Every structure is written in C-alpha cells, then in structure tokens.
C-alpha cells in the first residue's frame, strides 16, 4: 500500500498492529451513524433500528467463528475482552479454586490481567513454550492443579504468528473441568476458527485487526455449558449483564461488516497472504544472517518475524524509514528492553532486539513485499558495514 506525496514512499506492513479501515466498513459505519440515532436499549423506532443493526452485526461476527449469535458479547476491543474473560472468569469461579495458567508469550492484556489477579491472591503459572513458540499439551497438563479454574492461550501469537494447537490444549483442560480462554485477535480472518472444533469457553476478538474500526471488539462466551463470569462494569445490564453500557451501533456495525467481509473472502485472502509471506521470507533469507522467529509452518499467513545478525533493531528501523513495520527493539525507548516474546523463545538478547515483524493485510501487494526486501537489503548492508567485525 504505497502512498504518495512524501519523499520516501511508505509501505505499510504493520497490519498486526492495526489494519487500514476497509472502505466498505467505513460506508457501513457512516450508514449506521445516519440511521441509528436511538439508544439500542429503547423500545421506540430509532432504538429498534439501532438494535437491528447491532443484532445483524452480532450474527456476522458469530459467523466468522461458527458460533451462535447470542454467544457474542460486544466490548471496546480485545483488551477489554481479555480482561473480562480472565478477571471475570477467575473471580466468577474463585469458590472452585484460585489458580490460572497462561504463557509468557501472551499479549500484555492477558499478562497484566493475570498480574492483577495475583495481587488479589490468585496464583498464576506462566508456562514457557518451546523455541518454536508452541506449547506442548503435556506441559499444560502438568501445570494444572485441582485448584486451576482457567487457562488462557492465544491462537495466533501477535509477534511471531505462531498458531497454537488450541483443540489439543483445550482437550487437556476439558478433562479437568478447567475453563479455556483464547485470545484470537490476530487469528480472526487469517486462520479458520470453529468454536465447535476448538471446544473452548471464551474467545477474544478485535475489529481493527480485520480492517474494522478501533474501539470495538467482542468476547465469545460459550452458551452450553455457560461459563460463570463476573462482570467488570455494572449499569444497564446490556450484553446479558456482562458488559453494561449503551452500545455503540456505528462501531458495532463496522465490526460486523469487517467480519462479514473476512468470512466471505477468508480462505482466498489467507492463501494470497501466505504466498506473499513466503515470498518475503525467501527474499529475506537470502540476505544471510537472518533467522525466522517461531515455528516454520505452524504460523498465521500474515506475519513474518525475522531477527537479523550484526545490526541493532532500532537502527534498522530508522534505516528503513518509510517501511512501516514493528521492531523487537523498544523504539519508544521507555524500556530499552528487547521483545519479551522472543526472549521467552530463547532468542539471545541481541537477536531479539534486532528483529522486525512484517505483517501483511488486505491491501498489501507483491510490489510492497519486493520493495520491502530491497530496502532491508540496502539497510542491512550499510549497518553491517558500520559495525565492528
């Protein structure tokens, strides 16, 4: 997606952070803004129109994960969904036990929610996946105790793109009566999600990772057996009492349209992205001293995370100005620490720090990939030339 009007053409390959709004989604949101003036909780006609839009969107979101529409709870985004699942699930089941299990490579929304629970007296076990990013179901089984009530594992890792075998992990939990939460923010629209096949209780979803708007997400909550969740906020009792607050019809309409588009074109788009990602990796691998982070094949089609020998990640990022990607280095320089996800996979600090995440989206093209690889080659050559031997 190259733009114009700037000295350096921009190539946006940071779709794992957020995706550009699809024009069809924008149109659906504008239509909802015009049509849905009423509060969806009200009985009058404008309220009913808003509710109809919301329920249509609910069905579209549910369809992507093959779930019943009434299992979808709208939230402000995947972070809130993660918090509702983890805090709500743990607190709602504390009479049964106060132990949770997750992974060191989870998103901060999960890790920080777990940390908050520790301050409330819960025990949290954070497992370390293998060097390929995959969690062995046997390791999960060994971590469960009679007091474990909830396990949280993401389907697609947001940094490496590694796809966990959720069905196998969930089977371990199911046998022990443990709730399973899955953060699928990176997975939706990129890998197939079938709640029946996965057999999990809670799934976090985000709109803006699927070319929808920022500020809206959803939590899938299994209907039968329905997990006990304690709400995080109270008020009007919307969303089955799990998420009080007036619903933002235009945001939800946008999420519905984004998920409808992803369902309609998911398989073909995933295959296209996989082809682009393979091409990118082939080009980068040829530069030498380059390492793919995460499992070689069990990965989402849109993420290629690469570590480069002999350079600093932040320097590489500046060298590649105009190429919009994520870095394993802390570019904001608040922490200066390399990626905790890559460190958990055993990458040495220098390599974890010198990593870039290229993530593709609907508007990424083959030309973007070729241009990105060309810029990386030039940047790598200059920076390696600056470095001591």
């Amino acid at each position: 997606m190259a733009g114009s009007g700037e000295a350096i053409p921009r190539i946006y390959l940071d779709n794992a952070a957020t995706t550009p709004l699809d024009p069809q989604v924008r149109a659906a949101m504008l239509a909802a803004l015009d049509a849905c003036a009423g509060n969806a909780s009200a009985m009058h006609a404008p309220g009913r129109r808003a509710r109809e839009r919301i329920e249509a969107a609910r069905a579209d979101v549910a369809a992507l994960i093959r779930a019943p529409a009434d299992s979808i709870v709208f939230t402000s985004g995947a972070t809130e969904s993660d918090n509702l699942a983890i805090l709500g699930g743990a607190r709602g089941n504390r009479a049964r036990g106060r132990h949770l299990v997750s992974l060191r490579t989870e998103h901060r929304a999960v890790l920080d929610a777990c940390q908050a629970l520790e301050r409330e007296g819960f025990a949290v076990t954070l497992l370390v996946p293998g060097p390929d990013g995959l969690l062995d179901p046997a390791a999960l089984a060994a971590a469960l105790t009679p007091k474990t009530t909830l396990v949280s594992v993401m389907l697609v890792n947001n940094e490496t793109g590694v796809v966990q075998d959720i069905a196998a992990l969930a089977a371990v939990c199911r046998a022990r009566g443990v709730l399973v939460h899955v953060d699928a923010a990176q997975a939706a629209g990129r890998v197939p999600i079938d709640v029946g096949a996965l057999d999990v209780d809670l799934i976090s979803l985000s709109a803006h990772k699927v070319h929808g708007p920022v500020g809206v997400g959803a939590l899938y909550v299994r209907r039968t057996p329905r997990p006990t969740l304690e709400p995080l906020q109270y008020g009007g009792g919307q969303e089955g009492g799990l998420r009080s607050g007036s619903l933002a019809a235009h945001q939800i309409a946008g999420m519905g349209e984004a998920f409808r588009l992803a369902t309609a074109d998911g398989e073909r788009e995933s295959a296209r992205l996989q082809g682009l990602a393979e091409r990118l990796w082939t080009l980068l691998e040829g530069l030498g001293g380059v390492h793919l982070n995460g499992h070689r094949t069990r990965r989402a089609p849109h993420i290629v995370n690469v570590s480069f020998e002999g350079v600093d990640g932040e320097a590489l990022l500046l060298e590649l100005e105009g190429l919009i990607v994520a870095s394993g280095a802390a570019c904001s320089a608040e922490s200066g620490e390399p990626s905790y996800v890559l460190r958990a996979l055993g990458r040495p600090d220098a390599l974890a720090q010198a990593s870039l995440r290229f993530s593709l989206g609907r508007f990424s093209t083959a030309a973007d990939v070729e241009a990105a690889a060309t810029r990386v080659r030039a940047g790598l050559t200059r920076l390696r030339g600056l470095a001591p031997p």
Partner: protein
Amino acid sequence: MSAGEAYSEEVRRLFREAPAAGRAAGAGWVAAEATEPLTGTRVRWHLRSEGGVITDARYQVRGCPHTVAAAALAAAALKGLPIGAAAIDFAAIAQRLRAPAAKRGRFFVIQDALHAALLLFDAPSA
C-alpha cells in the same frame, strides 16, 4: 510507527552520514572495543596520536541511532585532545541529542571502548 519520529534532526543526520565511521590501522593507531550484551551494543574505537595528542578518531558501531550519533560527536571532539586529558562529556552529548534516559546507558559502551583504547597508548606495544 515511523522510527524517524523518535529522533531529532541532528540524530537523524549523524546516523545517516556517520561521519568518521570506519576502521583504521597502521603506525600510531590503536583500537579497542566494548560491548553491552542486553541490547547487543558494540563500539570499537580506532585512535591515532602524535606527540601525545589525538590526531584522528574513527569508530565502528552496532547500536541504536542515538549511539551512532553520540559516537560521531565524540569522534569529532576527540581530535586535538591530549591523550591524558581526552575526556568526553557524554552527559552533554546526551542532552544535545535529546537522548531518552533509557538510552544513556548505551553511551557508557562508547565511553568504555574509548577508555580501553586510550589505555593502549600507554602500553609498551603502542
């Protein structure tokens, strides 16, 4: 994010041009290196002296843009300094480059490498 937004114009220029970067060897030259493993920062100084005065300074660096820029400024400041008084004010450089606090630790790598190189002037082989 665009990485460029995190840096001043001067940092961007020094990073891009890296003046006096490179290696040098031969009569009168010494070289020494320091490393910081957490970030992988590495700096190697190449210094030449005549009559107890530093006449040339080059550097090789694997580091963030602020580190490259700081090394470039230090190299320029070193020329003409007496070996025994070749002190660089890295706090002033950090301030000039508007380096965030978390970055300033990396400047110690430049400083450590510099100290190691200066000590070589006193060594018998120098």
